[in-house]
């Protein structure tokens, strides 16, 4: 029995029934990581000893699990702080950084006796859509090792898709949970802004960043979300609400969905359009209702996002100066040290974004760029609010194409940015969204589609996700390149 390929919920049931011992489940995962991580590069750091120690202490003879996440092996993206466990953000700048504290979400996982297997690979500081900007090398797609995993939560997506973790935490600033989930054939969910604490998440763009969840099934994602969500007094952007809780078996309610066809008319891969049409037909037969909606400012999302996000990033990354933590390049005076440290510690994409952000905030350009982008943000947000006043959810592709080849878009940063077209608007508007497996391309690569909900309607969105799974019946199988790697 391939325990590593079961859903998280199924693993839990097997543990409770005594069909598998907790240590055995852990060892199977560690073995799988040993066999696959060399090829797929999902993990940057592992936490083996601590996991074994926790089970020895808490899962001994006669012990019973206290909650659905107990003794379940999960992975955490490497821009989320874990006390005593290296947190690199995929950057030379923090290559050796060990945080003195746990992020709130990590504290909450630990409180449930969840096993933190290790830290996953990511685009440097969360900046990227392919996991190719990581200082530790790219991840490979579990369905085709010559293709990208997507990013920036590439490692988390690969770990889950390849059975190297039961679920994973990722972060989503412009699509970085949803897009790699789509490219790797799994579920990726970004909560409404403020529902999950950002304390201990290394900031990229503070008004956009959210911690999200990746899993092989919506039920799994819901179980992890219940643990990590809910008000945190230590995060001033955390909203005063309870944890998101979805009860199994609860009916989804109204499933009226808007599709902005005008926006999808060009630049989308034929296989993605075909998958969308097939999904609408299948879901329609299951009782979902579809109508056309307009989103007049959607085509400005990328421009608005890349001004706002990079401006915020230029401010957030000013702290990496070689003084208090991380990499330092010594020099005669402190100013030279700042420049030398930052130039050697950051990769090219991070430098590009810092410079872009600095430019749009600088005197003489601030009004034309940053202020303008903030106004367009208002209009984009209004588009979503108007649409969600008429329908329950919006349906769009997650990514305009299936996974592309490694190296295909690295020469042209703008080309890479354009692959975020369907995800960034959601962050600008602070809304919840989920990428769900919908089918495969002609080349056998996964295609995900995205449901977007109204602010704080996360429970409804997750229930719709479960209804989607039941209606779509997308087969779950071991990814092609993983099967190949395990056979050798």
């Amino acid at each position, binding site marked *: 029995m391939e325990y590593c390929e079961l859903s998280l919920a199924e693993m839990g049931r097997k543990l409770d029934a005594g069909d598998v011992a907790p240590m055995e489940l852990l060892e199977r995962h560690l073995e799988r990581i040993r066999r696959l991580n060399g090829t797929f590069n999902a993990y940057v750091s592992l936490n083996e000893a601590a996991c074994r120690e926790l089970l020895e202490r808490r899962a001994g003879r006669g012990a019973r699990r206290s909650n659905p996440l107990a003794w379940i092996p999960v992975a955490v993206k490497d821009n989320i702080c874990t006390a005593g466990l290296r947190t690199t953000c995929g950057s030379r700048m923090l290559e050796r950084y060990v945080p003195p504290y746990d992020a709130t979400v990590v504290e909450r996982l630990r409180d449930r006796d969840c096993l933190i297997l290790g830290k996953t690979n990511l685009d440097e500081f969360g900046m990227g859509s392919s996991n190719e900007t990581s200082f530790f090398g790219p991840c490979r797609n579990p369905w085709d090792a010559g293709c990208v995993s997507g990013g920036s939560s590439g490692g988390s997506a690969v770990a889950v898709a390849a059975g190297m973790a039961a679920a994973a935490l990722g972060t989503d600033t412009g699509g970085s949970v949803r897009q790699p989930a789509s490219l790797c054939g799994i579920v990726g969910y970004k909560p409404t802004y403020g529902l999950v604490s950002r304390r201990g998440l290394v900031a990229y763009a503070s008004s956009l960043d959210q911690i999200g969840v990746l899993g092989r099934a919506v039920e799994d994602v819901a179980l992890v979300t219940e643990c990590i969500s809910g008000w945190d*007094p230590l995060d001033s952007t955390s909203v005063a609400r309870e944890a998101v809780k979805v009860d199994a078996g609860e009916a989804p309610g109204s499933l009226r969905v808007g599709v902005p066809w005008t926006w999808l008319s060009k630049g989308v891969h034929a296989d993605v359009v075909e998958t969308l049409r097939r999904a609408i037909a299948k879901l329609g037969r299951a009782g979902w209702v579809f109508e056309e909606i307009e989103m007049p400012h959607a085509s*400005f999302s990328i421009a608005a996002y890349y001004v706002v996000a990079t401006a915020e990033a230029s401010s957030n990354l000013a702290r990496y100066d070689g003084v208090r933590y991380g990499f330092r390049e010594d020099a005669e005076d402190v100013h030279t040290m700042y420049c030398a440290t930052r130039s050697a510690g950051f990769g090219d994409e991070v430098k590009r974004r810092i410079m872009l952000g600095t430019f749009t905030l600088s005197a003489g350009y601030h009004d034309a760029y940053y202020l303008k982008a*903030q*106004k367009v943000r208002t209009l984009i947000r209004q588009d979503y609010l108007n649409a969600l006043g008429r329908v329950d959810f919006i349906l769009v592709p997650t990514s305009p194409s299936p996974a592309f080849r490694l190296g295909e878009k690295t020469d042209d940063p703008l080309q890479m940015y354009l692959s975020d077209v369907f995800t960034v608007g959601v962050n600008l508007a602070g809304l919840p969204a989920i990428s769900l497996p919908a089918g495969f391309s002609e080349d056998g690569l996964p295609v995900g589609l995205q449901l977007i909900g109204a602010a704080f309607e996360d429970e409804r969105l997750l229930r719709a996700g479960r209804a989607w799974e039941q209606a779509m019946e997308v087969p779950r199988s071991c990814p092609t390149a993983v099967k190949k790697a395990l056979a050798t």
Partner: protein
Amino acid sequence: MTISKAIVEHVARLCRLSVRPGEVERFQKELGRIIEYVDKLSEVDTSLVEPSSHGLEGTTPLREDVRGPGSLSREDVLQAAPASDRGHFKVPRVL
């Protein structure tokens, strides 16, 4: 708008990045392409629109200025420092 060499050098100075002579042209080209793309924002009529710094409504909550949970000890914090001395972060000369 086009990004001149002077702009790249000015911006680099502002954000404390040193751009090597061989790199200036490349960054000029790449940033130029991106700025050219985001220039499309000028097509949108925003004359009657308020800017948003955030996706959702809300204000920053305030609390009493007293030490609370989540504080780190000085030892914890200095652990990660590249250089420290007698409870301080140590840096090269400032002036």
